[in-house]
Each structure stands twice: as structure tokens, then as C-alpha cells.
């Protein structure tokens, strides 16, 4: 007992808080005063439209995969609000470093649907974004783009540019040293970077409880010396507000931020996965009640900002846009095989010229 008392006398030298942000309840009702941008009806509708486009695009992409016209694909089902909300708060000159499930952010930033299809269809040209030319391509090795984000932000800071790097990854990535090393460095140099962990509860089949003993992922920012906030990732208003605040702070020289977006992966990990192997239909069904699109729709309808006719028109528009993109994707012929050498180096070294000729059949011709 004596030692317990002695311990109580030890001073607390640091305390940390993790806050949770939410505005819209699952039924679309409001939990607390909305952020200023919520009075911009056009923006709210744009967010809604973008999430719907993503969902319909995903549906089509899966159909293409199931019919052998697309490779493995990762849907965003249930977590559309995260990537759309984050991207909507970025400026054009900012740089996005996405993971492979962040189509929503890329589309918002101007990457063409057919480019995304090209990538998942197995063509590197899909990463030659015609839109945000400085954005990074999808990162496949989980979390390994986090150090890049720190490097990009360092370049911004060195050149005194008011730009922000925004790095998206999943809950699984927070278990990797890459993410911690990047956050730690960003903290040391107060870099203009925002790290976003999309906590969709599952890293393929591994649930969050086997990923970490932490109560939140947001608190991982504490170890790197900056603020982490937990956000309802199914509330696009909360995502947008948190992103806006974090990105503005980063741009204003106040250093990095970390956002944990709590959501749920309603779909399989990818088209190659069968989530029924590791989680129950009941669990997924329960989570459908919280999904982000119905939630925002309820709010918009309640505010008389959205109608059934709008919904029908949007679906038709999205489908038309998706179909047109699919057509362009399917009409894109594969590159000539020897072009696999063409972007290996700035100039193909002499040593490999013969291999290129060999592949092109030019030697035999």
C-alpha cells in the first residue's frame, strides 16, 4: 500500500485528449451546430453527388471484374464519405497520396474514371493522371506512401509554398513502422501534412482488435507530437470539417494533423475476397444502418435540398458518365509490349536497348 500511495504522489507531466467529431446522426438528424460550410447548399449537394457517383462507379467496376473485363478491384462501399470529404477540403495545388481504396478522393480531384479503370484493368497509363498532375498514384504496399507524404511536405516547407500533402491509408497501415516514422518526422519539422487513417474495422480479415490495443487510432498522433482527432467517417460533414480544419492549420504553418475516420467496410476487401469467411452477415447488416449516403440524403431531404426527382436524375447522370468512361476504357488498346521499357529510365540505357528490340521483334524483322 505504501508504494501505491507513493505512486499517487508522482506528478502527472503530460495529458492528452482525443476528441470525436460528428454532426449528423445515422438518421440524418443533427447532433450539434453544423460547420459554416453546411450553409452552402451547392457544396452539400456536390458532396452527395460525388459519393453517389463513387458508389455507382464501384458497382459497375465490380460488374466489369465479374465479367472478366477488369482486374482485381477494391470498392469503397460504406466509406465513401471519407475520401470525398477529405478531398473536398483540399486545394488544387495540394498533393494527395492515396491508398488503393481512395478512388473517391481521386475522382473529386479530377482523375478521370477511365484512368481509374485503366489502372485496375492492368495498364500503367491509368496512373498518368490528366488531372492533378502532382498527386501520387494509388499506393499498393500498405502505408509505404506515408514517408513520401512527409518528403512532399518537406519540399513544400523548404520552398515556402503554401501547399499541403494529404496522405490516406487504412487502419492496417497504422501498425506499420512506415506510418509512425513518417508521422514522427512530420512532427519534428512541423510539416504541412495531414495523415488520414480510414478505420474501416478490417484489414482484409484481421479485425481492429488484433491490430492495436489502443482505444483510438487518433491517439497514435500523440506519440508523434501532434493532434489526432477521431471523426465519424460516415458523416461527410464531419469529414469535410475535420479535413478543412487540419488542412488549413497545416497550410498556416501549424504543423501536421492526424485524422482517424471511423467507418465500416461494407464490401469485401477486394473482388478477390469473400468477407463471409471472417465476419457475419448480421454484423454487416447492422452497419448498413450507419452508412454515409443514406445519412446525408436524409439530411438533404429534410432540408428540402434534395428530392426523389433529383435522385432519379442523378442516378441517370452518373450511369451515363460511368458508361461513357467504361466505353473509353474498353476502347483503349493495350500499349505495344516494348513500351514497357519506355518509362523505365529517362533514357533507356544502351544495355537494355537490345531487350527492347527483342520484344518488339525488330531484330527478326
Amino acid at each position, binding site marked *: 500500500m505504501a508504494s501505491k500511495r507513493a505512486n499517487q504522489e508522482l506528478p502527472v507531466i503530460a495529458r492528452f485528449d482525443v476528441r470525436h467529431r460528428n454532426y449528423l446522426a445515422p438518421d440524418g438528424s443533427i447532433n450539434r451546430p453544423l460547420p459554416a460550410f453546411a450553409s452552402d447548399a451547392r457544396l452539400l449537394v456536390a458532396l452527395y453527388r460525388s459519393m453517389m457517383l463513387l458508389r455507382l462507379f464501384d458497382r459497375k467496376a465490380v460488374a466489369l471484374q465479374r465479367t472478366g473485363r477488369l482486374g482485381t478491384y477494391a470498392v469503397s462501399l460504406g466509406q465513401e464519405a471519407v475520401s470525398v470529404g477529405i478531398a473536398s477540403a483540399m486545394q488544387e495545388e495540394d498533393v494527395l497520396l492515396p491508398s488503393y481504396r481512395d478512388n473517391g478522393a481521386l475522382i473529386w480531384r479530377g482523375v478521370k474514371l477511365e484512368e481509374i479503370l485503366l489502372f485496375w484493368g492492368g495498364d500503367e497509363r491509368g496512373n498518368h493522371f490528366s488531372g492533378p498532375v*502532382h498527386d*501520387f498514384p494509388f499506393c499498393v504496399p500498405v502505408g509505404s506512401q506515408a514517408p513520401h507524404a*512527409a518528403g512532399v511536405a518537406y519540399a*513544400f516547407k523548404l520552398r515556402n509554398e503554401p501547399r499541403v500533402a494529404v496522405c490516406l491509408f487504412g487502419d492496417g497501415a497504422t501498425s506499420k513502422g512506415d506510418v509512425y516514422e513518417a508521422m514522427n*518526422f512530420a512532427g519534428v519539422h512541423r510539416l504541412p501534412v495531414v495523415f488520414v487513417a480510414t478505420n474501416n474495422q478490417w484489414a482484409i480479415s484481421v479485425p481492429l482488435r488484433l491490430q492495436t490495443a489502443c482505444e483510438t487510432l487518433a491517439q497514435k498522433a500523440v506519440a508523434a507530437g501532434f493532434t489526432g482527432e477521431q471523426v465519424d467517417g460516415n458523416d461527410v460533414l464531419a469529414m469535410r470539417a475535420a479535413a478543412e480544419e487540419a488542412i488549413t492549420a497545416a497550410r498556416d504553418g501549424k504543423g501536421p494533423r492526424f485524422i482517424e475516420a471511423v467507418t465500416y467496410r461494407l464490401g469485401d476487401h477486394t473482388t478477390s475476397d469473400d468477407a463471409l469467411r471472417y465476419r457475419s452477415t448480421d454484423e454487416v447488416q447492422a452497419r448498413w444502418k450507419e452508412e454515409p449516403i443514406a445519412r446525408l440524403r436524409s439530411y438533404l431531404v429534410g432540408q428540402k435540398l434534395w428530392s426523389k426527382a433529383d435522385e432519379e436524375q442523378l442516378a441517370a447522370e452518373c450511369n451515363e458518365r460511368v458508361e461513357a468512361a467504361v466505353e473509353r476504357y474498353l476502347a483503349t488498346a493495350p500499349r505495344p509490349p516494348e513500351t514497357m521499357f519506355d518509362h*523505365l*529510365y529517362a533514357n533507356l540505357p*544502351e*544495355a537494355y536497348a537490345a531487350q527492347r528490340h527483342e520484344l518488339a521483334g525488330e531484330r527478326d524483322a
Partner: protein
Amino acid sequence: MPEMTLVEALNLALARAMEDDPSVVVLGEDVGLNGGVFRATVGLEKRFGSERVLDTPLAELLISGLCVGMAAQGLKPVGEIQFMGFVYPCLDQLVNHASRMRNRTQGRLTCPMVLRTPHGAGIRAPEHHSESTEAMLAHIPGLRVVMPSSPESAYGLLLAAIRDPDPVVFLEPTRLYRAAKGEVEDNGEALPLDHAFVLRDGRDITMISWGAALKETAAAADALSAEGVLAEVVDLATLKPYDEETVLSSVAKTGRCLIVHEAARTGGFGAEIAATVAEHGLTSLLAPVTRVTGYDTIVPMARLEQHYMPSVDRIVTAARKLCQFG
């Protein structure tokens, strides 16, 4: 021209590159005030500021990953890894990102970075400080792997590596850092990459090596010349992509090919050269292509490392055998 050590020549090249190009950034552990554990970056922080010469946290993966991010944003990062034994956390970044950024974005983003690290044994260093795993790196498409062997080539090749628009792993022969001395003019002139250098003309045997092992190879050539054997010594300098033409034309002249490297034999880069000579130079051969290398063991710690590295004796013996073949 002033005489200097190899590490001083590296320092001179770094300073020149930073002076010429404000986008060059040097980063690594202890590279700032301390000037690097081998002093390759000494004085740079004072001259160019701590924003361009930055001490990173102790995290090698981070150093390589930062380089990728910086390079994609138009900087020219030169990262330092303190010893080759610590380079492995960087492999993910080198294989998955640095080497393929240009290709996977079809030229939209590029990765003009340099990752410097000491290479090889021979300084009685602690465990994990003496590896020579260059073949692993030379296997990665999209990378360049470069290794100087003298103060002059250290200066010229490092400048070339920094100016190159693609990622370069720059391997520095640790035991030559201070042992190799030579005249270097700070004229800002780079040496060509992807180019092997004939250090010594000969007619009887081609001896190909790179990095520190060239020291013993050159000494072996001296010993052989006393016996009337004129060895041609080729410094490969760039391992990836390597200059097949210089190797093949030398072998075509001498008819004998001896490859010397410190790295373990199996899967070493010598195997690649031997394969090239077998494929394209077989008819000029008067004797089997032969390798003198480190053994297929873990590189031993200080007490035995001299027995591991190719010695002048081993090279001379192998060369004699080739010259007496048939």
C-alpha cells in the same frame, strides 16, 4: 590539383552539387553538425543550412521514403545510410517506389534521388557494418547502382549520380575512404554513368572489378607484370546498367576473363558478367571465365575479415591459372 582522400572528394562533390543546384538536399543520420559518421558531409550544414542538410530521426526506411517524396516534388535528395548493413529497411522503398515511380506513372512523376551508403569490409568495424550486397540492388529494374574506386571517380560519379534524372544507389568503398588518395580538381565535371573504365591496358588477361577490390586487383596486375603477364584492369563503376561493351571488347582482346568481387560468390554480380561473356564472348575465350570473390559465408567480423576478402595472392594465383590453361 589538390591531393585528397576519397571521402574528401565525396564531400567536395556534395558541396559542388549543392552550390550549383538549390534543389539538392542532403539527409541522413548525423549528417548535419557531425558531418556524417565518415565525415562525408562535414561542413555542409554550416555552409548550406540545416534545412538543406538535415539530420533525420534514426529511421532508414524513413530516409529512403523521404527521398522518394522529395524527388517526386522536384527536389534532388541525397540520402545517407550509415552502413550497408542498415540499408535493408530501404529495400521496400527502392523496389516498390524509387525504381518504378517513373514507370508506374508513365513519366508523370519521377524519382531523381541518390542513396549513398558505405560498402564492404576491411575497417575492423562491428558486426553488420561490412556487407557487400550490391548484386541484390543491381537486380532491381529501374535503379542505377554505382560504385567509385578512387577520389577522382568518387567526385565525378557522385556528381553524375546527383544530376541523373533517375534513382541511383551510390555504394562507397569503406576501406578506401581514407586509404585512397589522389588528385581531384573541383571543376564540376561529372564522369559518365553506365560506363566502365579501363584503368590499365593489357593484352593477356582482363581483370574486372569494382569498388575497394580494385585495390587488390591493381596490385595483382603489378605482380603479374613482373612475371610478364600484362593484365587489363576494368573498373565496372556502374553495376546497373553495366557496360557490357567495354567488358566484351576487352575480353575479345585478351581472351581471358577474371572477375574479382568482395561479395559472396553465389548470385554475385560476377555471375552476371560471366553469363554475358558466355553468351556474347565465348569464341574469344582461351580459358574459362573465373571468379575470385568473398566466400559464400556471412562476412566474418574483424578477426577473420582479411581471410574473406579477395587477396592479391588469390587474384594472382587465379590469373596465373587462366594464363596457363590448355
